[in-house]
């Protein structure tokens, strides 16, 4: 039996309904031993380093991607401030010139001839300005340069890359965007230009094969945001990735990682066998078991499948990534085998297809407590939430959308009525539907307090409040980013609240979120995390 540490705090918010508040928590062998106040721990030595701070259960990010770790090896050029895996603030860039300046600095700092890569470019939040080949050519005429848009669907290449790829004014495919003069603008989208780029740049896969350092950066980026458990919610999990995960997820890693197998990577029968084999070697830091299915595309990309009345601007309906009948088959096989599914649906028609598939599976093989989770589920109508509840589903809502694309959704994609019920967290709560909220990092920045801020304020980037009746209280939002998310990962017996017997996973905050004005929730500093009893201070606060 190991030593007992008693942490003292200004306040401990436990998320445990029978003991919601405390000031002291005792930890032994990585687990929570007891929770109480000073009088419960008289005579014991106290660890007072967090005595002025507020302790919460470690945050649980139920929907992110390990690509967050991969991208941080490149230069961030997005419009909003982000925090890098070392905890350093990386300022947002408000203009094309600022983007070019930062890339030029990266080029000067490491002038080699490798490809210079930028990521996170976000035209929407710099007044629609588009980045072109000519802008990038100002950095270097010789070095290959590419910049990923925040959506990851568009890549901008400089002239050197276009030359290498052989894209000219004669290239006649839609994915090679042209200037008015007929020359390629540098913007590339879709699979055809991507393959050409891969081959021209001598890359083997799109954002590079996973490397051990990517996992470490992923963990770092999560840790500085107070996250102690994070899902990598769509991964083909080739043997090499699994090996790297196993090697990287040592007991020293400051987060627990929960990768979800991409259903599209193999037939469901094979997926069932793969999950069984992967689960057999789960550790406390690396937990396999989930399968992710993507049903449709994105709302802002007009690729989500919407029910009537469709897109607000009249755009044609989006794309199925899995046909409704096929979804039924795939869900049925995993469900019968006892696997937990996380199903991406953005549009409400896709959500209907997922609900039908689950209903059919439940009818054939009734299963209690399966906790299949609809991921994003952004346009859920009230009756869909009711049916989800009825079928034993959870939802993980994409609250950050309200801030980043809320104005676009109101004006262009789905209109004011449907934006008011977008990511309807308060409705889910009222109906008793288990739910969480997420960032989908790197699509939007990692940071549960920011996600909670979005769900509490429902404010768009222009300052409009979208659907005030769907706002959560701060307490409700904090539940969603801790125990709520742990529940959707089927890990609530181990994490998510400060309860004796659970893992000693904490987020240590500089201020008390329950007494902070809602608009300031996102600005509370994370001082440290505790994972399995081990303290991980968040580094540089620059």
């Amino acid at each position: 039996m190991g030593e007992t540490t008693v942490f003292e705090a200004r306040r401990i918010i436990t998320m445990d309904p029978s003991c919601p508040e405390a000031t002291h928590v005792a930890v032994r062998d990585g687990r929570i031993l007891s929770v109480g106040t000073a009088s419960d721990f008289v005579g014991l030595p106290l660890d007072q380093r967090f005595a002025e701070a507020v302790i919460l259960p470690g945050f649980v990010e139920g929907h992110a991607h390990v690509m967050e770790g991969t991208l941080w090896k490149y230069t961030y050029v997005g419009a909003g401030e982000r925090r890098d895996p070392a905890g350093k603030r990386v300022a947002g860039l408000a203009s094309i010139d600022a983007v070019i300046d930062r890339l030029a600095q990266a080029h000067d700092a490491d002038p080699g001839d490798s490809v210079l890569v930028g990521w996170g470019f976000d035209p929407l939040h710099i007044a629609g300005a588009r980045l072109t080949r000519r802008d990038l050519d100002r950095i270097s005429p010789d070095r290959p340069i590419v910049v990923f848009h925040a959506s990851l669907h568009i890549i901008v290449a400089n002239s050197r890359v276009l030359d290498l790829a052989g894209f000219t004014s004669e290239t006649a495919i839609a994915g090679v965007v042209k200037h008015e003069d007929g020359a390629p603008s540098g913007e590339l989208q879709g699979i055809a230009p991507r393959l050409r780029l891969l081959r021209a740049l001598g890359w083997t896969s799109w954002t590079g094969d996973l490397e051990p350092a990517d996992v470490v950066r992923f963990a770092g980026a999560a840790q500085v945001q107070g996250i102690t458990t994070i899902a990598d919610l769509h991964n083909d999990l080739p043997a090499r990735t699994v090996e790297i995960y196993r090697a990287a997820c040592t007991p020293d890693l400051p987060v627990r990682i929960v990768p979800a197998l991409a259903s599209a990577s193999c037939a469901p029968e094979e997926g069932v066998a793969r999950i069984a084999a992967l689960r057999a070697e789960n550790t406390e830091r690396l937990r396999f078991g989930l399968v992710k299915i993507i049903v449709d595309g994105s709302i802002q990309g007009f690729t989500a499948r919407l029910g009537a009345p469709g897109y607000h601007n009249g755009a044609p309906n989006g794309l199925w990534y899995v046909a409704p009948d096929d979804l039924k088959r795939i869900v049925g096989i995993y469900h019968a085998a006892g696997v937990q599914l996380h199903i991406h649906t953005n549009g409400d028609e896709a959500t209907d297809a997922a609900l039908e598939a689950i209903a059919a599976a439940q009818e054939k093989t009734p299963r209690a407590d399966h906790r299949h989770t609809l991921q994003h589920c952004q346009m859920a109508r009230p009756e869909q939430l009711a049916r989800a509840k009825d079928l034993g589903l959870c939802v993980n809502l994409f609250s950050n959308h309200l801030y980043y694309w809320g104005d676009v959704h109101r004006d262009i994609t789905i209109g004011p009525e449907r934006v008011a019920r977008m990511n309807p967290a308060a409705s889910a709560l009222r109906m008793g539907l288990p739910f969480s909220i997420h960032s989908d990092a790197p699509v939007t920045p990692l940071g549960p307090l920011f996600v909670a801020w979005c769900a509490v304020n429902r404010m768009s980037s222009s300052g409009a409040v979208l659907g005030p009746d769907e706002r959560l209280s701060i307490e409700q939002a904090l539940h969603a980013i801790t125990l709520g998310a742990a529940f959707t990962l089927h890990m609530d017996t181990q994490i998510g609240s400060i309860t004796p017997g659970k893992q000693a996973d904490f987020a240590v905050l500089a201020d008390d979120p329950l007494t902070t004005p809602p608009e300031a929730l996102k600005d509370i500093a994370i001082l440290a995390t505790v994972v399995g009893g081990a303290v991980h201070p968040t580094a540089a606060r620059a």
Partner: protein
Amino acid sequence: MRPPAPASRPRQPLTVIGGFLGAGKTTLVNHLLAAGERRYAVLVNDFGAINVDAGLIASHDGQTLRLTNGCICCSLGEGFLTTLARVLAEPEGFDHILIEASGVGDPSAIADIALVEPDLVLSAILVVVDAESIASQLRDPRIGGTVLRQVQAADLLILNKCDRLDAAGRAQARAALEALAPRCPVLEAVEARIPADIVTPGLAPARSRFRAASPARHEARFGRILYERSGAFDPDGLRAALNRTPASLLRLKGWVRLGPYATPHLLQMVGRRWTLTPAPETAPPGDGIALVGIACGAVPAGCALADLLDLALLHAPVPRPASSPALPRTITGDTPRCH
């Protein structure tokens, strides 16, 4: 940085096989594999559904099945781009690359790859349609748009499972397709059995086990076309003619000569998709135009085609000058698509 293809290595013809779930895409792949004796690379969604004689398997690593005859079969499990990049990096090229598109995918998105990859040339987009359910699929508000996009992307439509409909039903299904894709040939089939000659690249006829098995039925349904002329085509005239061929024309291939200097080119046409490739200097064909083709039905299509092509002939080709003009380039057809 870019690993250049060896200069001698010809572009590899790519055929994309699209169509909704259950239409018979994998059946068609299996049929083409069995019917030809070429070096194929095949990329499929579901490995297990491909019929391979166990005796032919040289190696199998879970993602790639290598056969003793040089063919390879790849599952798309590790991602489409990664898999295709791996196939293109194979030391020896393939006679034909077949890609089975996803049942909900738009095959033209994959076909675009061959329009920008210097190692590839797009042979055709084949779209397999389930004759029995196409009408209800197109009416289905959930999947109708997906099926429509597939049909409109096709260079050649294969109306499969025709044995499940009577003559009237087949005619109805055919009419529905013809209305949606007016210039696209529609080939009726059972169990996706189509003459492999229609879709296999190259000039030599594929030695087809299937043809050997039942030549009579084929010859009754398909007319063979032979078009031979001396002289050369006007390039713009030929382009216009090829963009207006009758929808009954399924296949046309052979040597043509273009322009005032009668520069030899190889014409490959599958369905409504055509490509003219300058002839390699080392392989000068005869001295005229020699095309062979396959059409639905018999003589009328051949006559109509000959009339159309004749209009594009130049009257008097001039001898090629000693110093050669600018190198001729590959010319491809502009296939109209509705998006």
